[in-house]
């Protein structure tokens, strides 16, 4: 029974995939290829504070250390990466 259900599911899903427009599939494939992977975005797994002031207050309250990135520049947005 499980085999029958699985086979039906495969046939159904294959049908859905084949009914997709090739142009749409091409664009989505391009998007998937260029969107960074979870590994590439690992810095967003860190516990970021919006400013040093906020980090210092939290450090005392939570008894945790701070990693401060200092950029010698007039602009820089570490949250977005445009720095």
């Amino acid at each position, binding site marked *: 029974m499980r085999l029958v259900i699985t086979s039906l599911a495969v046939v159904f899903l294959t049908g859905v995939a084949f009914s997709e427009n090739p142009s*749409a599939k091409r*664009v989505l494939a391009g998007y998937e290829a260029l969107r960074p992977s979870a590994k590439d975005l690992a810095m967003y797994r860190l*516990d970021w504070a919006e400013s040093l002031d906020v980090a210092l207050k939290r450090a005392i309250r939570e008894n945790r250390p701070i990693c401060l990135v200092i950029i010698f520049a007039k602009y820089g947005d570490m949250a977005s990466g445009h720095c």
Partner: protein
Amino acid sequence: MIEQLRPYIVTAWHGHRNDANVPEAVRTVWNWKFQGQRNSGRVRQSNVDIALINPKGQVIHAFDGFHPSTPESETLGQYTARELLKARPKLGRFNGPRGKRPLILPGLEEGERGIRVFVRLWEDRMVAYRAPVVEVVPQQAVDWKPLAWPAKERVVQASALKPWLSQIYPPGVMERTNPQTKFVYAIKSTEGELKLRSIKSGGNNRQAILSGVVSLTDEGPNDFNYQGRIEVLLTYEQGKSAPRTLRGYFDGLYPRWDPRHKETRWLSLQAAFESLPE
């Protein structure tokens, strides 16, 4: 390295030595750096430093973000991990992480709609440039109008999509910084005639594709510009004009000036777009 950073609250600060209100922690690090008390004899320094601060607010270790004298066999990640290890004994007792944090990308406020833009410059000489940029651009109802359902194929000017297309520029490219203000040259124009055509018009999942070449020009001298091809898939609910979702990409070339060899290097500049909320 990410695992070693988990106990830390991470934050960033940027500025110059003569700025008002330079934080005490930054002054401490720059005193070490510029007075030669740290890594004396070193000639090259980058403009990025990393300071590790204990829960009492005291800097207990600092190091250059891009150690120039690191052996070539050591990656930037390995070098950073090594420096983080040096600080561990000096930190004293602190609370550890409560568990693995989920991946939290920059997003929007509750109820807002917008477009997230991922940008990457495939610089082969400095891997740091390859780190992805993630920008989020809120979109109001009026901002979606240029992408309204195309009952007939039509042209959309890239200038109408400037708020999010203008995020396609690389990170940290110093030659595109105003030498007086030290601020990056913003993208002043996005140009190109893009074609918007429907590819599926029935049902509750109507689809259209936006495609064409976009030219981006920044506000610096000599009309510095670069181009790339864009393709975006839009979906629409039945009876609604504004797009429900947007997914797409930009694939272009960025001309980076190499002062050492006095030549322009053409680097791949790519972006991916997705509408929010997902």
